[in-house]
């Protein structure tokens, strides 16, 4: 019985962990894009 629960727990943990991993990467990506936007805006200011 414990084996079944252990297996379920491990599988769920990994799936959940992967979801968190994806969310984390997406957040990082959004930050990157934001900082890039700022960089571009600054450059446009400087070239005027």
């Amino acid at each position, binding site marked *: 019985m414990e084996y079944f629960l252990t*297996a379920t727990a*491990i599988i769920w943990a990994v799936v959940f962990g992967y979801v968190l991993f994806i969310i984390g990467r997406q957040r990082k990506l959004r930050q990157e894009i934001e900082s890039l936007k700022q960089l571009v805006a600054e450059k446009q200011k400087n070239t005027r």
Partner: protein
Amino acid sequence: MKGKESFKTAGLVVALLLFMWALYMIFIFVPTEATMGISQRIFYFHVPLAWLGLLGYTLVFFGSIMYLWKRRSGWDNFSSSAAELGFIFTTLFLISGSLWAKPAWGVWWTWTPRLTTALILWFIYIAYLTVRFYASEKQQGARFGAVVGIVGFVDVPIIAISTSLWRSEHPGALVFQGGLTPEMTFGLMVSIAAFTVLFVYFLAIRTSLKQQEMEVERLRELVEQDQ
């Protein structure tokens, strides 16, 4: 962008619903198997994970060929995402197999053809990921990865049919021998569907994530260059 977002959300919803249904199936609906008891329920995880481990490398193979042919980074991102997920699913497949083997046979592992070939698949995934990790630059990683993706796939058919090829105590082609009740078969189908949708969903998200990361990096280089 709007269409993509709603598609993603829809995919997630479908995956979650299927998963809840599968869990209900696995925990409540299916009858307990006579000889092995409750631990047999791991079967409903184990089989989908195995199938997806094999599917994963098949996708790596397909993506590798497409990459070497078309040389578009999208295919490479597809292959590496498929490898990442396939590796995770194969690892879970091995772990779940061990957790089933211990109560069912009394050992964590035996060197039967089925398990041995499964381990080989696991190592082939490692070979693919290793090559990408140790490549001296991105393009080389993609190219070399594709090579491993293609040559490694030669072993996959044998891994897939190893149960029917060699008779052993592995509960192999139970599904086809009619050793399952209709409820069990149905439960298994639901579980396979749930895991497959989850896999495909993860694959799509991961691939697009890699694509976007690549694009953002390229843009950053462009912007920084002008300074």
